Every structure is written in structure tokens, then in C-alpha cells.
């Protein structure tokens, strides 16, 4: 089948304004959008710029807005877009550096602000810090995050203010807050109860819809809100 890709283009060195460029390519229904981008870069215009690494939905590099929704280009098949025209744009709320590449720094700054690592000063046991299957299950969903930013850059609260820590950072905070081996919950909850924390979330669900790992993002945020409200991790 023949599909037309309408791609957002911006080259800071050309002095030209951002614009859209159309490319018509031959595609298999089972091709991924990333395959088409690679094809265009290889055959039509080598300057087309986008991030990708694993091409298998695990590194989180290639989040982009495809037909108006945040997706990983490497996980989205042409046949699932139901149409011969595909619009590809950079994710929203971060500065565009070139074409589909955005400046992820504000996103990672938010991520770092929630202390995304195990905090436990107690002396380590000889073998390992034991945890029951149930205790492990408690935060299983939020361990799946690949930091692709699909969620945070789909969130209207983040669009309004990039200082809002955003769903991705809260997902990671959740992953440690509800980990029985971690001792930093109180500190993280204090950070997230601040001006740019969880209360910027208005339960809009864009993040959950956008997450390519199918994490229940809004639920994780809800659980953190509740932990702050009740002061308990139950």
C-alpha cells in the first residue's frame, strides 16, 4: 500500500521557519512507523532527524506525536493507523531542537527531583534485602516505565507549566515509595506534595492513554495523592 507521511521539519541552521514536509512511500501494513522514517531518511532526505535506539519498544527514545497522539514509532504498525496519511510531529511541551528531536532536559530534571533510586541506610544483609511476592507485586506496574515521556508530554498540566513534575516522575516515585525495601517514602511524598507535585494532576487520563507500556499511570498518581492525604502507605 502507498502511504503519505506528513512530517514536522525544523532545521535551526537553515534559518527557515518550521514547516511540514510530505513523503509518499510504499509500505507493508505490518511496517512500523519507525521503518518508514528510516526509509525516508535513507532514500529521500538524510537530514531528517529523530531519536531511536533499540527499535523494540524498550529504550524509550522514539516518542513522537503520531496522528495527534503520543506513541513510540517503533511500536506502532501502519495498519493500526487505519489511513493512508500519517502525521508525525514532535512531542509537546519540550523545546524542539531539530525535526522530531526535543530537549529532554526539563523532563529528566523533573525525574531527578523525585530521588529515583533506592534509599536505605540500614546495613545491607549478607545476601539480599528480602521481599515477599506480595510486597514485590505492590509496585510491579510502575517498574515497567521506560522514561519515554509519552505520558508527561500528553499532560495538559505539563503543557501549561514544565515545572510540574509530571506523570513519568510520579510513576518512578511510586515505584520506590511502595517498595518495602526503601526508606525514602516520607521524603518523596514531601517533594510531591509541593507546589509542582501531584496536585497539578486533574485526573485527565491522557498519560494513561499514551503510555506504551500500558502502565496505569493515573492510578499510580492517585495512590501517591492518597498516601500524601492519609499519611499512610496502606
Amino acid at each position, binding site marked *: 500500500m502507498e502511504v503519505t507521511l506528513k512530517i514536522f521539519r*525544523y532545521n*535551526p541552521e537553515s534559518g527557515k521557519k*518550521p514547516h511540514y514536509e510530505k513523503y509518499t512511500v510504499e509500505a507493508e501494513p505490518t511496517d512500523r512507523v519507525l521503518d518508514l522514517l528510516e526509509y525516508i531518511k535513507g532514500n529521500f532526505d538524510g537530514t531528517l532527524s529523530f531519536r531511536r535506539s533499540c527499535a523494540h519498544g524498550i529504550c524509550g527514545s522514539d516518542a513522537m*506525536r503520531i*496522528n*495527534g*497522539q503520543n506513541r513510540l514509532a517503533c511500536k506502532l504498525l501502519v495498519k493500526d493507523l487505519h489511513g493512508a496519511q500519517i502525521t508525525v*510531529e514532535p512531542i*509537546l*511541551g*519540550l*523545546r*524542539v*531542537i531539530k525535526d522530531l528531536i526535543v*530537549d529532554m532536559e526539563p523532563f529528566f530534571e523533573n525525574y531527578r527531583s523525585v530521588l529515583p533510586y533506592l534509599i536505605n541506610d540500614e546495613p545491607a544483609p549478607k545476601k539480599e534485602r528480602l521481599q515477599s511476592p506480595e510486597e514485590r507485586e505492590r509496585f510491579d506496574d510502575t517498574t515497567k516505565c521506560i522514561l519515554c515521556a509519552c505520558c508527561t508530554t*500528553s499532560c*495538559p498540566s505539563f*503543557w*501549561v507549566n*514544565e515545572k510540574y513534575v509530571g506523570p513519568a516522575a510520579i510513576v518512578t516515585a511510586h515505584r520506590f515509595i511502595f517498595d518495602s525495601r526503601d526508606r525514602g517514602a516520607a521524603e518523596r511524598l514531601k517533594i510531591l506534595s509541593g507546589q509542582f507535585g501531584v496536585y497539578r494532576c*486533574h*485526573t*485527565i*487520563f*491522557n498519560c*494513561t*492513554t499514551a503510555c506504551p507500556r500500558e502502565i*496505569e499511570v*493515573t*492510578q499510580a498518581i*492517585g*495512590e501517591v*495523592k*492518597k498516601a500524601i492525604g492519609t499519611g499512610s502507605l496502606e
Partner: protein
Amino acid sequence: MALKRNVGLKGIKYRGGGPMLAWALHRISGLAIVLFVGLHVISSFFMQQLGSDIATALNTVYESIYFQFIVIFIVLFHALNGLRVIILDLWPQLIKFQREATWLQWLIFIPTYGMTVTIMILNQLQGG
């Protein structure tokens, strides 16, 4: 030079679907209620204190049945959607039933609004 951070209208075009629409309507309806209540207060004030033509005109708008249809729609939507948000905030374990919650919200909305409008129309016909 990277482009400036600029979401603007592009945000409105983001395809967030039903849940995003519910949020946008909630915000718009919240502001609309503030306007209605404001209008109500102002028109009552004019009526009582001045009894002028402006007051009569405002009251005619405010009391017209079509205006009331819209007001009831907006207030009922805001109230039910607000309750959904409150319930999901209080019991986050229910968030996985978000879709069902939205269905339920409209399941309550449609008969409630339908009944209210029917009664209003019947009253109007009886010159109520």
C-alpha cells in the same frame, strides 16, 4: 537555536479522547457556572435596587426556558463529573474502572436531565 517551548493551540488538537474532553468540559462548565451565578446576582440586584429596563432585560434572559436548559445541563454535568473525580481521588483503586465510571456518569445524567427537561416543558405547556 532550539524552538521556544510553545504548546498553545496544538494542545487543543491533541487527541486525548473522551477523558480529555470531560476535563475540558469540566473546566468550561466551572467557569460558566461562575458567569451564571454572577449574572443572577447582578440581575437580582438591578431588579431590587433599580427596577430598570436593564434589570428586566437581564431577567428575561435569565428566566427564559432555553437558558435554563443550558444552565441545568452545565450544572448537572459539572456536578456528576466532579463527583466522579472526587470518588476516583478518594479511592484510587477504582481508577482502573475509569471507563465504567464514565458510562455510569452518563447513565445517571441522561435520565436525570431528560426527566428535568420533560417536567419543565410540561410545566411550560400548562402555563406553569
